[in-house]
C-alpha cells in the first residue's frame, strides 16, 4: 500500500537573512517543507538562526532573499492573509500581567476577530485546555512560571490557527507544567493543527516531533524523523547525542 503524500503547508526556499552590520548571515539558504498535520521540530544551538526563522515565518521580519509561503500565501507580500492562518507562542510571556488570564484571552480573541458571541465559549475552552479555568480571574502577575507558560499557550491557540509556532514554550518551568503542555500540544496536533516547535530540550523533540531539522549557522545540517536520524547515526543512542555530535560541544554564547 502506498502512502499518500501529505500537503505541504509551509515551505521556505533558499531563505537568507543578513542583519545590518553583521559579518555573516543569520540564515544562509534555509529550505524547509512542513507537512500539514505534522509536529515539526526546528532545533539548533544558540545563535543557529531558529528565532530568526520563526520571526520571518510569523511576518515579523523580512528575509534578505529567498521565498516563504504558508498555504500558498507569500509571507512577505501577503502578510495580512498569513496572519489569519498562524498562531504564535513566543518565548516571552507575552501577556498583560496586570490583567487576569480571562481578560487577556478576551482581548486577544477580539483582536483575532473571533465573533463576539463565541468569545466567552472559546476563552473558556482554551482556559480549560491549559488547566487554568479555575484561576482564570486571577491577575497573570500572580501566576507561577508554569501557569504563565500555559496562559501564553492558550492565547496562541484561541483562534484555532492552521499552523502554530512555538518558540521554546516549556523553558524554565516544572516537570508537571511541561508534561501538561506537551500533552496538550499532542492533542492539538491530533485535532489537525500543524506545529512548528523550537526547543533546547532534545527529549521533548524526540517525544513529540514527527520530523525535525537541525540547523547551525543558518544552514540545515540534518533533517528527518527523530527516530530515523538516531538510527542512522552510529554511536548515538538518542537525539541529544546526535545533536552534540553534529553541532559540537563548544559553547555558543
Amino acid at each position, binding site marked *: 500500500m502506498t502512502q499518500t503524500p501529505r500537503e505541504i503547508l509551509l515551505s521556505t526556499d533558499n531563505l537568507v537573512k543578513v542583519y545590518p552590520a553583521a559579518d555573516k548571515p543569520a540564515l544562509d539558504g534555509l529550505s524547509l517543507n512542513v507537512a500539514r498535520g505534522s509536529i515539526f521540530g526546528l532545533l539548533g544551538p544558540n545563535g543557529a538562526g531558529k528565532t530568526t526563522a520563526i*520571526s*520571518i515565518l*510569523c*511576518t*515579523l*521580519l*523580512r528575509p534578505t532573499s529567498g521565498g516563504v509561503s504558508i498555504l500558498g500565501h507569500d509571507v512577505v507580500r501577503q*502578510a*495580512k492573509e498569513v*496572519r*489569519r492562518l*498562524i498562531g*504564535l507562542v*513566543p*518565548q*516571552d*510571556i*507575552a*501577556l*498583560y*500581567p*496586570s*490583567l487576569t488570564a480571562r*481578560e487577556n484571552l478576551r*482581548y*486577544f480573541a*477580539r*483582536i*483575532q*476577530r473571533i465573533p*463576539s458571541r463565541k468569545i466567552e465559549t472559546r476563552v473558556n475552552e482554551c482556559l480549560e485546555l491549559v488547566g487554568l479555568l479555575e484561576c482564570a480571574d486571577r*491577575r497573570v502577575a500572580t501566576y507561577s512560571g508554569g501557569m504563565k507558560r500555559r496562559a501564553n499557550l492558550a*492565547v496562541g491557540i484561541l483562534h484555532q490557527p492552521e499552523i502554530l509556532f512555538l518558540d521554546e514554550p516549556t523553558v524554565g518551568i516544572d516537570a508537571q507544567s511541561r508534561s501538561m503542555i506537551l500533552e496538550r500540544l499532542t492533542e492539538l496536533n491530533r485535532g489537525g493543527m500543524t506545529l512548528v516547535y523550537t526547543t533546547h530540550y532534545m527529549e521533548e523533540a524526540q517525544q513529540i516531533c514527527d520530523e525535525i531539522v537541525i540547523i547551525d549557522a543558518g544552514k540545515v545540517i540534518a533533517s528527518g524523523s527523530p527516530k530515523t536520524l538516531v538510527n542512522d547515526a552510529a554511536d548515538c543512542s538518542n537525539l541529544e547525542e546526535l545533536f552534540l555530535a553534529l553541532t559540537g560541544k563548544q559553547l555558543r554564547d
Partner: protein
Amino acid sequence: MLLLANIKKELLLLSRDRAGLLVLFVMPMLLVLVLSLIQDNLFRATGETATRAIYLNLDQGALGGKLGALLESTGSLDLITDFAGEKRDISSARQKVFSGDYQFAVVVPPEFSAEITSAAETAVQSAFSQKTTDLTTGQLMIFFDPTVRGVYRTAVTNSLYRGLLGLEIAQKSEAFARLLPLEVQRSINQQLGTEMAAQMQLDLPVISSSWSRQSLIELTEESAYPEKYQTLPTSVQQNVPAWTLFGMFFIVIPLAGTLIRERQEGTLTRLMTMPVGNGSLLLGKVFAYQIVCLIQFGLMLSVGKFILPLLGTPVLELGSAPLALIIVAISAALAACGYGILVGVLARSYDQASSFGAVSVVIAAALGGVMVPVYVMPRVMQDLSVLSPLGWGLEAFLDIFVRNGNLLSVLPGVAALLGFFLFCIFCASVVFCRWRRGI
C-alpha cells in the same frame, strides 16, 4: 470593533494601576494649584496689584506724611506704617526686609521736612539772583531685598521718584509764591529808593501754590489692538489654562511608557503577528489616553473655578463659548496624545522616553508662554514660540476666557493642534509600519 477592543484594554490596564491613575489625576491638579498660586503672587508683584512696602516716617514735619499720601495715590504702592508693636526704627525696618517679609522699606529721616523746605527756598532764591548755589538736599533711604529683580526694583524706584518730584514741585511753588512779592518789593526798593517805594501803594502779585498740582498733559493709555486685547487676563485666567496644558502634555510619559512596556514584555510582538491594523493599535491608545486628558482638564479647570478662589485668587471666568472650549480641549488632548505615541515609537527605553518627553514638554511650555509671557522673551525666542503646540492651545484658551472668543476665533489654534496630532500620528505610523514589515 478592534479599535474599541484596544481602547477597552488600555482603560482596563489604566484602571489596574490605581497608584498610577492617582498620580495622573492628582499631580496635574497639584501642579495647577501650586503654580497658579505662585504665579498669582508674581502677577501681583509685577504690577497687577499694589506692592506692599514698609514706610517708616520719622519726619518731624508734615512732608513725610505728604510724601506717603502721594506714593499711595499712584496706586502702585500699599505702604505699611504699623510695625505690629515692634520698635519703629531703621534697624527693625531693615530687618523686616532682610527677613523677606517685605521686598523694600522707605525710611523718611527726622529732618526731611526742614531740609526740603530749606532746599526749595534756596533754589528759588538762587533763581531770582541768577546764581547757581549748591543745595543741601534732603535724604530718603530705601532698603531693597537683594533678591528683588531689576524691573521690579526700577518700578518701585520710579514710583518714589514720581512722589518726590511732586513734593519738590509743590515745595518750590510754595517757596516761589512766598518769595515772589518779597523779591518784587526788593527790586522796586532798589530801583526807586526805599522812601519813594514806601509812598507808592503798590499791589504786589500774589500767587496761589495750587497751580503746581495741575497737570498740563494728560497721558491716555490704549491698547494697540483693542479688538483683540480688550481685557487683560487675570492671573488665574493666564495660569490655569497655561499649567493645565502643561499637565495635559505630561501624558506623553505614561503613554509612551505603555508602548515601550508592550515592546519589552513581548505583547506588541505578539500583536504584530495578528490580523490587526497599525491604526487600531495606535489609535486605541490615543483615544483611551484622550479620555484621561479630558478628565485631567475638567479637574484642573475645577481647581481654577472652585479651589483657587478659596486661597485668595480671582475666580476663573470660563468665557461664553463652552463648545469652543471643549473643542480646544479635545484638540489639545489629541496633540498631547499624538506626541506621546511618537515619543513611544521613537524611544528605545522607558528612561529615554521619560527624560526626552519631559524635557521636550518643558521646552515647548517655555516657548509657548506658559512660564513667562512671550512678549518678554528675546526676539529669537519670540519667533520660535510660534512652533509650540502649548502656545497654540494657550492662545486659544485665552481667546475664550479673556476676549470672548468663539469657535471661529479659535479655529487657527484648533487647526494647528489637530495638524500637529496628525503629523505625530503619521510619523509614528511610518516607524511602526517599518517595525511591522521587519525592516
